[in-house]
Protein backbone atom coordinates (compact mmCIF):
# COMPACT_ATOMS: atom_id res chain seq x y z
CA UNK A 1 0.00 0.00 0.00
CA UNK A 2 2.91 2.31 0.70
CA UNK A 3 4.14 1.93 -2.88
CA UNK A 4 0.65 2.55 -4.19
CA UNK A 5 0.17 5.63 -2.00
CA UNK A 6 3.24 7.28 -3.50
CA UNK A 7 1.98 6.72 -7.05
CA UNK A 8 3.09 3.23 -8.09
CA UNK A 9 -0.15 2.22 -9.79
CA UNK A 10 1.09 -1.27 -10.61
CA UNK A 11 1.11 -2.07 -6.88
CA UNK A 12 -2.68 -1.97 -6.83
CA UNK A 13 -3.04 -5.36 -8.52
CA UNK A 14 -0.81 -6.90 -5.84
CA UNK A 15 -2.82 -5.20 -3.15
CA UNK A 16 -6.03 -6.48 -4.69
CA UNK A 17 -4.78 -10.06 -4.87
CA UNK A 18 -3.69 -9.88 -1.26
CA UNK A 19 -6.83 -8.36 0.21
CA UNK A 20 -9.76 -9.24 -2.05
CA UNK A 21 -10.26 -12.86 -0.92
CA UNK A 22 -10.29 -11.87 2.74
CA UNK A 23 -12.58 -8.90 2.21
CA UNK A 24 -14.90 -10.98 0.08
CA UNK A 25 -15.08 -13.71 2.73
CA UNK A 26 -15.82 -11.12 5.42
CA UNK A 27 -18.53 -9.40 3.37
CA UNK A 28 -20.00 -12.69 2.23
CA UNK A 29 -20.44 -13.77 5.83
CA UNK A 30 -21.95 -10.43 6.76
CA UNK A 31 -24.38 -10.20 3.85
CA UNK A 32 -24.90 -13.83 2.83
CA UNK A 33 -25.34 -12.51 -0.70
CA UNK A 34 -22.70 -13.01 -3.37
CA UNK A 35 -23.63 -10.08 -5.62
CA UNK A 36 -23.76 -7.63 -2.74
CA UNK A 37 -20.46 -8.89 -1.32
CA UNK A 38 -18.81 -8.47 -4.72
CA UNK A 39 -20.22 -4.97 -5.07
CA UNK A 40 -18.96 -4.02 -1.61
CA UNK A 41 -15.50 -5.42 -2.38
CA UNK A 42 -15.44 -3.24 -5.49
CA UNK A 43 -16.58 -0.23 -3.49
CA UNK A 44 -13.97 -0.88 -0.80
CA UNK A 45 -11.14 -0.89 -3.33
CA UNK A 46 -12.44 2.27 -4.97
CA UNK A 47 -12.50 4.00 -1.60
CA UNK A 48 -8.95 2.85 -0.90
CA UNK A 49 -7.90 4.14 -4.28
CA UNK A 50 -9.52 7.54 -3.80
CA UNK A 51 -8.14 7.92 -0.26
CA UNK A 52 -4.66 6.60 -1.01
CA UNK A 53 -3.11 10.02 -0.37
CA UNK A 54 -4.37 9.85 3.23
CA UNK A 55 -2.73 6.49 3.86
CA UNK A 56 -0.19 6.81 6.68
CA UNK A 57 3.35 5.65 5.88
CA UNK A 58 4.06 2.25 7.39
CA UNK A 59 0.51 1.71 8.66
CA UNK A 60 -1.11 -1.73 8.62
CA UNK A 61 -3.39 -1.92 5.59
CA UNK A 62 -5.57 -4.77 6.85
CA UNK A 63 -7.49 -2.87 9.58
CA UNK A 64 -7.99 0.03 7.18
CA UNK A 65 -9.42 -2.20 4.46
CA UNK A 66 -11.72 -4.01 6.88
CA UNK A 67 -12.83 -0.72 8.47
CA UNK A 68 -13.75 0.66 5.04
CA UNK A 69 -15.61 -2.53 4.14
CA UNK A 70 -17.53 -2.48 7.41
CA UNK A 71 -18.40 1.21 7.05
CA UNK A 72 -19.69 0.64 3.52
CA UNK A 73 -21.72 -2.30 4.75
CA UNK A 74 -23.28 -0.19 7.50
CA UNK A 75 -23.87 2.61 4.99
CA UNK A 76 -25.63 0.27 2.59
CA UNK A 77 -27.93 -0.93 5.37
CA UNK A 78 -28.64 2.63 6.45
CA UNK A 79 -29.52 3.64 2.93
CA UNK A 80 -32.26 1.08 3.02
CA UNK A 81 -30.71 -1.20 0.48
CA UNK A 82 -31.30 -4.19 2.64
CA UNK A 83 -33.24 -6.56 0.52
CA UNK A 84 -34.73 -9.93 1.30
CA UNK A 85 -31.51 -11.80 0.94
CA UNK A 86 -31.41 -15.06 -0.87
CA UNK A 87 -28.72 -17.25 0.54
CA UNK A 88 -26.40 -17.92 -2.34
CA UNK A 89 -23.69 -19.49 -0.24
CA UNK A 90 -22.52 -22.81 -1.54
CA UNK A 91 -23.65 -25.59 0.78
CA UNK A 92 -20.83 -26.65 3.06
CA UNK A 93 -19.05 -29.85 2.23
CA UNK A 94 -20.44 -32.51 4.52
CA UNK A 95 -19.29 -36.06 4.96
CA UNK A 96 -22.31 -37.92 3.57
CA UNK A 97 -21.15 -41.13 5.15
CA UNK A 98 -22.54 -40.20 8.58
CA UNK A 99 -26.10 -38.82 8.29
CA UNK A 100 -26.53 -38.33 12.06
CA UNK A 101 -23.32 -36.36 12.26
CA UNK A 102 -24.27 -34.32 9.24
CA UNK A 103 -27.65 -33.51 10.74
CA UNK A 104 -26.11 -32.55 14.07
CA UNK A 105 -23.55 -30.37 12.34
CA UNK A 106 -26.27 -28.66 10.33
CA UNK A 107 -28.36 -28.05 13.45
CA UNK A 108 -25.35 -26.70 15.32
CA UNK A 109 -24.57 -24.38 12.40
CA UNK A 110 -28.15 -23.08 12.48
CA UNK A 111 -27.96 -22.46 16.23
CA UNK A 112 -24.65 -20.65 15.83
CA UNK A 113 -26.03 -18.50 13.02
CA UNK A 114 -29.17 -17.64 15.00
CA UNK A 115 -27.10 -16.75 18.05
CA UNK A 116 -24.72 -14.61 16.04
CA UNK A 117 -27.66 -12.80 14.42
CA UNK A 118 -29.13 -12.07 17.86
CA UNK A 119 -25.94 -10.46 19.19
CA UNK A 120 -25.05 -6.76 18.87
CA UNK A 121 -23.20 -5.94 15.65
CA UNK A 122 -20.08 -4.81 17.52
CA UNK A 123 -19.76 -8.15 19.34
CA UNK A 124 -20.52 -10.21 16.27
CA UNK A 125 -18.06 -8.32 14.07
CA UNK A 126 -15.28 -8.46 16.67
CA UNK A 127 -15.75 -12.21 16.99
CA UNK A 128 -15.84 -12.76 13.22
CA UNK A 129 -12.82 -10.59 12.49
CA UNK A 130 -10.76 -12.59 14.96
CA UNK A 131 -12.10 -16.12 14.55
CA UNK A 132 -12.98 -16.20 10.86
CA UNK A 133 -10.93 -13.46 9.19
CA UNK A 134 -7.73 -14.07 11.11
CA UNK A 135 -7.11 -10.53 12.32
CA UNK A 136 -5.10 -10.06 15.50
CA UNK A 137 -6.75 -8.37 18.47
CA UNK A 138 -4.80 -5.20 17.70
CA UNK A 139 -5.86 -5.21 14.04
CA UNK A 140 -9.50 -5.87 14.94
CA UNK A 141 -9.39 -3.09 17.53
CA UNK A 142 -8.04 -0.66 14.95
CA UNK A 143 -10.63 -1.69 12.37
CA UNK A 144 -13.46 -1.22 14.87
CA UNK A 145 -12.07 2.01 16.30
CA UNK A 146 -11.75 0.70 19.81
CA UNK A 147 -9.18 -0.66 22.23
CA UNK A 148 -7.69 -4.15 22.34
CA UNK A 149 -9.31 -4.73 25.74
CA UNK A 150 -12.74 -3.82 24.38
CA UNK A 151 -12.30 -6.17 21.41
CA UNK A 152 -11.27 -9.02 23.71
CA UNK A 153 -14.32 -8.38 25.86
CA UNK A 154 -16.69 -8.27 22.87
CA UNK A 155 -15.27 -11.44 21.35
CA UNK A 156 -15.41 -13.18 24.74
CA UNK A 157 -19.06 -12.22 25.23
CA UNK A 158 -19.88 -13.51 21.78
CA UNK A 159 -17.99 -16.73 22.47
CA UNK A 160 -19.82 -17.21 25.77
CA UNK A 161 -23.18 -16.62 24.09
CA UNK A 162 -22.34 -19.19 21.43
CA UNK A 163 -21.15 -21.69 23.98
CA UNK A 164 -24.31 -21.18 26.02
CA UNK A 165 -26.56 -21.51 22.97
CA UNK A 166 -24.90 -24.63 21.61
CA UNK A 167 -24.81 -26.14 25.12
CA UNK A 168 -28.51 -25.38 25.73
CA UNK A 169 -29.44 -26.76 22.34
CA UNK A 170 -27.59 -30.01 22.99
CA UNK A 171 -29.15 -30.26 26.46
CA UNK A 172 -32.66 -29.71 25.03
CA UNK A 173 -32.08 -32.59 22.62
CA UNK A 174 -31.03 -34.86 25.46
CA UNK A 175 -27.29 -34.73 24.89
CA UNK A 176 -24.57 -33.75 27.31
CA UNK A 177 -23.99 -29.97 27.41
Amino acid sequence: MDRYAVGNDAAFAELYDLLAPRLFAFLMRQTGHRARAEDLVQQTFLQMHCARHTYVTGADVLPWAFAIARRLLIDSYRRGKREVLVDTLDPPAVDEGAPDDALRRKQAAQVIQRTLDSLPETQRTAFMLIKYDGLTFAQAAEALGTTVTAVKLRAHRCYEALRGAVGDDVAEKGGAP
Partner: protein
Amino acid sequence: MTRDSIRDAILLEIAARPARTRRDGRRRSALIYGSAALAGVPLFFAWGGFGHGATRPLDLTIRIALGALLIVIACADVAWWRNRSAVGPPTAALLAIAALAPLATYAWLVLWHNHYAAPPARIGFRCMAMTLVSGGAMLGAALHLRKRTVVVDPLVAGAALGATAGAFAQVMVDIWCPLTNGEHALVGHAFPVAALAIAGGLIGGRVLTIRAFVRSETRGRSPGSLERLDCGPPDKGRSRD
Protein backbone atom coordinates in the same frame (compact mmCIF):
# COMPACT_ATOMS: atom_id res chain seq x y z
CA MET B 1 -13.34 -16.13 -4.04
CA THR B 2 -14.04 -13.16 -6.21
CA ARG B 3 -14.08 -13.79 -9.92
CA ASP B 4 -11.44 -12.61 -12.37
CA SER B 5 -14.06 -10.44 -14.07
CA ILE B 6 -14.56 -8.52 -10.83
CA ARG B 7 -10.81 -8.04 -10.56
CA ASP B 8 -10.62 -6.75 -14.14
CA ALA B 9 -13.58 -4.43 -13.58
CA ILE B 10 -11.99 -2.92 -10.50
CA LEU B 11 -8.61 -2.47 -12.17
CA LEU B 12 -10.35 -0.76 -15.11
CA GLU B 13 -12.25 1.55 -12.77
CA ILE B 14 -9.03 2.43 -10.97
CA ALA B 15 -7.18 3.10 -14.20
CA ALA B 16 -9.98 5.41 -15.38
CA ARG B 17 -10.03 7.36 -12.14
CA PRO B 18 -6.77 9.10 -11.31
CA ALA B 19 -6.29 9.60 -7.60
CA ARG B 20 -4.04 11.91 -5.64
CA THR B 21 -0.76 10.49 -4.47
CA ARG B 22 0.53 11.10 -0.96
CA ARG B 23 2.77 13.87 -2.30
CA ASP B 24 -0.20 15.64 -3.96
CA GLY B 25 -2.14 15.26 -0.74
CA ARG B 26 0.62 16.77 1.37
CA ARG B 27 1.03 19.74 -0.93
CA ARG B 28 -2.70 20.37 -0.94
CA SER B 29 -2.94 20.00 2.85
CA ALA B 30 -0.06 22.44 3.41
CA LEU B 31 -1.72 25.01 1.18
CA ILE B 32 -5.20 24.71 2.68
CA TYR B 33 -4.13 24.40 6.31
CA GLY B 34 -1.65 27.23 5.85
CA SER B 35 -4.34 29.53 4.48
CA ALA B 36 -6.79 28.51 7.21
CA ALA B 37 -4.22 29.14 9.95
CA LEU B 38 -3.96 32.76 8.83
CA ALA B 39 -7.73 33.37 8.81
CA GLY B 40 -7.82 34.92 12.29
CA VAL B 41 -4.73 37.10 11.85
CA PRO B 42 -6.52 40.11 10.26
CA LEU B 43 -8.93 40.16 13.19
CA PHE B 44 -6.02 39.94 15.64
CA PHE B 45 -4.36 43.03 14.19
CA ALA B 46 -7.61 44.90 13.56
CA TRP B 47 -8.40 44.66 17.26
CA GLY B 48 -5.07 45.94 18.53
CA GLY B 49 -2.63 43.12 17.84
CA PHE B 50 0.10 42.49 20.43
CA GLY B 51 -0.57 45.84 22.10
CA HIS B 52 -4.03 44.75 23.28
CA GLY B 53 -2.61 42.31 25.82
CA ALA B 54 0.23 44.60 26.92
CA THR B 55 -1.43 45.28 30.29
CA ARG B 56 -0.40 41.78 31.33
CA PRO B 57 3.29 41.04 32.04
CA LEU B 58 4.98 39.63 28.93
CA ASP B 59 6.39 36.55 30.67
CA LEU B 60 2.88 35.59 31.83
CA THR B 61 1.50 36.06 28.34
CA ILE B 62 4.23 33.81 26.94
CA ARG B 63 3.60 31.16 29.60
CA ILE B 64 -0.16 31.18 29.00
CA ALA B 65 0.32 30.96 25.23
CA LEU B 66 2.85 28.13 25.62
CA GLY B 67 0.35 26.26 27.80
CA ALA B 68 -2.31 26.72 25.13
CA LEU B 69 0.21 25.45 22.57
CA LEU B 70 0.79 22.32 24.66
CA ILE B 71 -2.97 21.75 24.85
CA VAL B 72 -3.30 21.98 21.07
CA ILE B 73 -0.30 19.69 20.52
CA ALA B 74 -1.82 17.11 22.89
CA CYS B 75 -5.19 17.35 21.10
CA ALA B 76 -3.63 17.22 17.63
CA ASP B 77 -1.48 14.24 18.57
CA VAL B 78 -4.67 12.24 19.07
CA ALA B 79 -7.25 13.85 16.82
CA TRP B 80 -5.30 15.41 13.94
CA TRP B 81 -2.23 13.30 13.28
CA ARG B 82 -2.99 9.64 12.78
CA ASN B 83 0.45 8.49 13.86
CA ARG B 84 0.97 4.88 12.69
CA SER B 85 -2.65 4.08 11.96
CA ALA B 86 -4.50 4.61 8.69
CA VAL B 87 -7.80 4.24 10.54
CA GLY B 88 -7.14 6.72 13.33
CA PRO B 89 -7.28 6.55 17.11
CA PRO B 90 -10.00 4.73 19.08
CA THR B 91 -13.36 6.46 19.37
CA ALA B 92 -12.96 6.80 23.15
CA ALA B 93 -9.74 8.81 22.69
CA LEU B 94 -11.43 11.13 20.19
CA LEU B 95 -14.38 11.57 22.50
CA ALA B 96 -12.02 12.43 25.36
CA ILE B 97 -10.38 15.12 23.22
CA ALA B 98 -13.74 16.63 22.26
CA ALA B 99 -14.82 16.76 25.90
CA LEU B 100 -11.54 17.72 27.55
CA ALA B 101 -10.27 20.45 25.19
CA PRO B 102 -12.83 23.08 26.35
CA LEU B 103 -12.30 22.09 29.99
CA ALA B 104 -8.51 22.28 29.68
CA THR B 105 -8.79 25.66 27.95
CA TYR B 106 -10.92 27.00 30.79
CA ALA B 107 -8.85 25.49 33.60
CA TRP B 108 -5.55 26.68 32.14
CA LEU B 109 -6.72 30.30 31.86
CA VAL B 110 -8.40 30.48 35.26
CA LEU B 111 -5.24 29.08 36.84
CA TRP B 112 -3.49 32.39 36.06
CA HIS B 113 -6.19 34.61 37.52
CA ASN B 114 -4.94 36.78 40.41
CA HIS B 115 -1.31 36.35 39.32
CA TYR B 116 -1.30 39.90 37.95
CA ALA B 117 -3.36 43.07 38.04
CA ALA B 118 -5.95 42.25 35.40
CA PRO B 119 -7.80 44.98 33.50
CA PRO B 120 -11.57 45.37 34.10
CA ALA B 121 -13.46 42.20 33.24
CA ARG B 122 -15.44 41.94 30.00
CA ILE B 123 -17.82 39.30 28.74
CA GLY B 124 -15.49 38.20 25.95
CA PHE B 125 -17.42 38.52 22.70
CA ARG B 126 -14.32 39.49 20.74
CA CYS B 127 -12.36 36.53 22.11
CA MET B 128 -15.28 34.34 21.14
CA ALA B 129 -15.43 35.82 17.65
CA MET B 130 -11.68 35.44 17.13
CA THR B 131 -11.79 31.80 18.26
CA LEU B 132 -14.75 31.04 16.04
CA VAL B 133 -13.20 32.69 12.97
CA SER B 134 -9.72 31.20 13.38
CA GLY B 135 -10.86 27.81 14.68
CA GLY B 136 -13.75 27.67 12.23
CA ALA B 137 -11.37 28.14 9.31
CA MET B 138 -9.14 25.33 10.57
CA LEU B 139 -12.13 23.09 11.13
CA GLY B 140 -13.44 23.86 7.65
CA ALA B 141 -10.04 23.02 6.17
CA ALA B 142 -9.89 19.73 8.07
CA LEU B 143 -13.41 18.74 7.07
CA HIS B 144 -12.70 19.60 3.45
CA LEU B 145 -9.41 17.70 3.33
CA ARG B 146 -10.81 14.65 5.10
CA LYS B 147 -14.12 14.58 3.27
CA ARG B 148 -15.33 10.99 2.81
CA THR B 149 -12.21 9.43 4.32
CA VAL B 150 -13.13 8.72 7.95
CA VAL B 151 -13.95 5.06 8.34
CA VAL B 152 -14.77 4.84 12.05
CA ASP B 153 -17.27 7.10 13.81
CA PRO B 154 -17.14 10.29 11.69
CA LEU B 155 -19.30 12.20 14.16
CA VAL B 156 -16.82 11.77 17.01
CA ALA B 157 -13.87 12.34 14.68
CA GLY B 158 -15.48 15.62 13.56
CA ALA B 159 -16.05 16.68 17.17
CA ALA B 160 -12.41 15.98 18.05
CA LEU B 161 -11.25 17.94 15.00
CA GLY B 162 -13.50 20.84 16.02
CA ALA B 163 -12.17 20.86 19.58
CA THR B 164 -8.60 20.76 18.29
CA ALA B 165 -9.28 23.59 15.85
CA GLY B 166 -10.70 25.62 18.75
CA ALA B 167 -7.67 24.84 20.90
CA PHE B 168 -5.45 25.95 18.02
CA ALA B 169 -7.24 29.30 17.83
CA GLN B 170 -6.75 29.75 21.57
CA VAL B 171 -2.98 30.20 21.17
CA MET B 172 -3.51 33.42 19.23
CA VAL B 173 -6.43 34.53 21.40
CA ASP B 174 -4.38 34.01 24.57
CA ILE B 175 -1.64 36.26 23.21
CA TRP B 176 -4.22 38.90 22.38
CA CYS B 177 -6.48 38.76 25.45
CA PRO B 178 -5.19 39.92 28.86
CA LEU B 179 -8.16 38.53 30.86
CA THR B 180 -8.24 35.27 32.81
CA ASN B 181 -11.23 35.65 35.16
CA GLY B 182 -13.70 32.74 35.33
CA GLU B 183 -16.70 34.25 33.53
CA HIS B 184 -14.57 35.61 30.69
CA ALA B 185 -12.63 32.35 30.31
CA LEU B 186 -15.91 30.46 30.15
CA VAL B 187 -17.77 32.66 27.66
CA GLY B 188 -14.92 34.00 25.54
CA HIS B 189 -12.57 31.02 25.48
CA ALA B 190 -14.02 27.67 26.56
CA PHE B 191 -17.50 28.10 25.05
CA PRO B 192 -16.32 28.67 21.45
CA VAL B 193 -14.01 25.64 21.70
CA ALA B 194 -17.00 23.56 22.81
CA ALA B 195 -19.14 25.13 20.06
CA LEU B 196 -16.55 24.19 17.44
CA ALA B 197 -16.49 20.63 18.81
CA ILE B 198 -20.28 20.42 18.50
CA ALA B 199 -20.23 21.94 15.01
CA GLY B 200 -17.42 19.57 14.01
CA GLY B 201 -19.49 16.63 15.21
CA LEU B 202 -22.65 17.73 13.44
CA ILE B 203 -20.98 18.58 10.14
CA GLY B 204 -18.36 15.83 10.38
CA GLY B 205 -21.03 13.17 10.83
CA ARG B 206 -22.29 14.11 7.38
CA VAL B 207 -19.21 15.01 5.36
CA LEU B 208 -16.42 12.86 6.80
CA THR B 209 -18.08 9.48 6.45
CA ILE B 210 -17.24 7.37 3.44
CA ARG B 211 -20.13 6.61 1.15
CA ALA B 212 -20.56 4.12 -1.62
CA PHE B 213 -20.14 5.37 -5.17
CA VAL B 214 -23.48 5.58 -6.88
CA ARG B 215 -24.06 3.40 -9.90
CA SER B 216 -24.39 5.48 -13.06
CA GLU B 217 -27.57 3.82 -14.32
CA THR B 218 -29.38 5.76 -11.63
CA ARG B 219 -27.86 8.97 -12.98
CA GLY B 220 -28.23 8.51 -16.70
CA ARG B 221 -24.62 7.66 -17.49
CA SER B 222 -23.22 4.65 -19.26
CA PRO B 223 -24.44 1.51 -17.54
CA GLY B 224 -22.14 -0.23 -15.13
CA SER B 225 -19.70 2.58 -14.52
CA LEU B 226 -19.61 4.45 -11.25
CA GLU B 227 -19.94 8.15 -10.69
CA ARG B 228 -16.76 10.21 -10.67
CA LEU B 229 -15.89 11.64 -7.32
CA ASP B 230 -13.28 14.00 -6.05
CA CYS B 231 -10.49 11.48 -5.81
CA GLY B 232 -8.11 12.57 -8.51
CA PRO B 233 -5.07 14.83 -8.53
CA PRO B 234 -5.74 18.41 -9.56
CA ASP B 235 -4.21 17.97 -13.01
CA LYS B 236 -5.50 20.10 -15.86
CA GLY B 237 -6.62 17.23 -18.07
CA ARG B 238 -8.80 15.53 -15.52
CA SER B 239 -12.35 15.25 -16.65
CA ARG B 240 -15.28 15.66 -14.31
CA ASP B 241 -18.82 14.49 -14.80
